[in-house]
């Protein structure tokens, strides 16, 4: 864990930074200033944030330094800056979910994960850009701005948690939180070359996460190493009475177990799912996948063939279930209690005008689709049938994970695509979710980890899938891979470009 003393703060791991604050080697203020300065150089170019909060962050950092001076024990994220996706409530801080309908909204409470982060002495530094209400795979559906991929500014960072992925990749923050409904943490993590974890459904309380599709939504961390990913997960996981789906089975991972290696561990490979993607699967991703299988074998893992026969139905299933739940969840945006109001005659006119003006195209499309799928005469054929197929998909995963300890599969069919490339064809955008959605429907944990770069220097990530409440095994596999090929140690040129370089 020891690093050269002259290593720039912004390249340091969260674990090392927190340890240095606890030991007094560095102050929380010094660390926070370093990341804020980095973000000053790049955030406007990358458009990673919807709201930055440097003053508040420095106040919080000062309070942590005072705590240490007073001899109080500090938490596991002592003085470590963290960026928060804009669909997670932070008390008193604008929270828009990337939507015009919530412009000006300041939540009167902290989400559960924010309470946990503050209790661990982390420093919240801002709210990151995302697709409107987390609906999208490129962050182009934000009503406010288009975030750029730090590795290639003409490409998307992925989505919907694109700002959270890009800000960590650009070393503007060592850590961030996103939310993952159908891949919204894992896909941008892969596009930006960082780690992104979707915990088991029920592992993290969603209290204070703006609901999109409640049977799928999970909050998860982004980081630049397997250990840092585990460090955040350990802080945010566990039971919270305010989210009845959160479960006590979600327990912290002992970080030292990640160093044990993977000798004898069974890694299941569902090859048929690659064929489903067909020509859509980029040769560079296929090659990275095959190389990773060999690397894990060399590290001692046993590769096991497994099948996910119903995974090919996952996209169709998801695009019925998620919009159906969204159409119901988004009914609350009616211009009465918060956000924007457009008066138009009577109450109904006001509802229709407010929602018509406040929601963007993708959100409207999904509300319409969900309303259709739930409407009289179609419920059984669409929503109920999709829920039955979901049962089959989940069973596939549990069977495959009985024959193996974790699964390895791609997370995205291609590296990051160009800005504007898929905005005219919603179905084409949906089809790029082919590898992320199955694990979401199954409710099992899944981790996107960086493995390599393509010929043009774009990051490639792959995905591990674990048994319910076993995030540790996936992180152990990723850590074993990381020890041999640390793809996340490379940073994009934008980090060191410009005056003074990284400090």
């Amino acid at each position, binding site marked *: 864990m020891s690093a050269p003393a002259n290593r720039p703060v912004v390249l340091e791991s969260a674990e090392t930074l927190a340890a240095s604050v606890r030991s007094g080697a560095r102050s929380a203020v010094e660390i926070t200033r370093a990341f804020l300065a980095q973000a000053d150089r790049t955030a406007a170019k990358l458009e990673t944030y919807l709201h930055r909060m440097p003053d508040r962050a420095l106040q919080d950092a000062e309070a942590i330094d005072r705590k240490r001076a007073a001899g109080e024990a500090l938490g596991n994220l002592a003085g470590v800056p963290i960026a928060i996706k804009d669909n997670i409530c932070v008390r008193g801080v604008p929270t828009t979910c990337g939507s015009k309908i919530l412009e000006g909204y300041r939540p009167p409470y902290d989400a559960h994960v924010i309470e946990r982060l503050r209790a661990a002495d982390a420093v919240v530094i801002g709210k990151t850009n995302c697709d409107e209400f987390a609906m999208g795979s490129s962050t182009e559906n934000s009503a406010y701005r288009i975030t750029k991929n730090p590795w290639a500014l003409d490409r998307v960072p992925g989505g919907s948690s694109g700002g959270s992925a890009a800000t960590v990749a650009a070393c503007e923050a060592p850590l961030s939180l996103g939310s993952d409904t159908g891949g919204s943490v894992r896909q941008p993590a892969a596009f930006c070359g960082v780690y992104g974890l979707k915990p088991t459904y029920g592992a993290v309380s969603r209290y204070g996460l703006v609901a999109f599709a409640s049977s799928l939504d999970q909050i998860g961390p982004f980081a630049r190493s397997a250990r840092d990913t585990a460090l955040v997960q350990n802080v945010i996981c566990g039971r919270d009475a305010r989210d*009845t789906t959160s*479960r006590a089975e979600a327990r912290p991972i002992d970080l030292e177990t990640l160093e044990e290696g993977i000798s004898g561990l069974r890694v299941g490979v569902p090859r048929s799912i690659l064929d489903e993607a067909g020509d859509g699967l980029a040769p560079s991703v296929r090659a990275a996948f095959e190389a990773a299988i060999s690397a894990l074998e060399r590290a001692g893992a046993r590769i096991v063939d497994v099948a996910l026969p119903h995974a090919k139905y996952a996209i169709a299933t998801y695009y019925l279930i998620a919009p159906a739940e969204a159409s119901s969840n988004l009914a609350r945006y009616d211009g009465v209690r918060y956000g924007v109001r457009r008066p138009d005659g009577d109450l109904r006119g006001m509802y229709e005008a407010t929602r018509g003006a406040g929601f963007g195209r993708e959100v409207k499309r999904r509300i319409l689709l969900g309303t259709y799928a739930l409407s009289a005469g179609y419920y059984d054929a669409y929503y109920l049938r999709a829920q039955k197929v979901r049962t089959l998909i989940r069973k596939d995963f549990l069977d495959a994970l009985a024959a193996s300890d974790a699964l390895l599969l791609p997370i995205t069919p291609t590296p990051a695509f160009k800005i504007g490339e898929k905005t005219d064809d919603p179905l084409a955008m949906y089809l790029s979710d082919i590898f992320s959605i199955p694990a979401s429907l199954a409710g099992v944990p899944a981790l996107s980890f960086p493995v390599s770069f393509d010929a043009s220097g774009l990051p490639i990530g792959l995905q591990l899938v674990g048994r319910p409440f076993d995030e540790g095994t996936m992180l152990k596999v990723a850590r074993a891979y990381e020890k041999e090929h640390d793809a996340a140690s490379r940073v994009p040129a934008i980090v060191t470009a410009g005056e003074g370089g990284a400090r």
Partner: protein
Amino acid sequence: MPIDVSVVRKIAALARLRIEAAEEERYARELGSILGFVEQLQALDVSGIEPTSQVTEGARPALRPDEVCPSDARDEALAGAPERDGDYFKVPQVV
């Protein structure tokens, strides 16, 4: 699967969502394309399969003790309202 603009109008009304007339045609086309794609589920035999509405099976819904605990402060909850009248949210006339 072709979707008629009259269907778009009907579901938009159900969702209390105003769609500009110029946009109806495009939504109809896009919904038709997505619904055509999800048709593949009809080919699957799901007889006797239980639906999954939540992946927390095997776990009883966790209940909390029925105790009085702090709720949202009224002023804070009302602070974000587009229009308020004292301690109430104000809406346009209903009847």
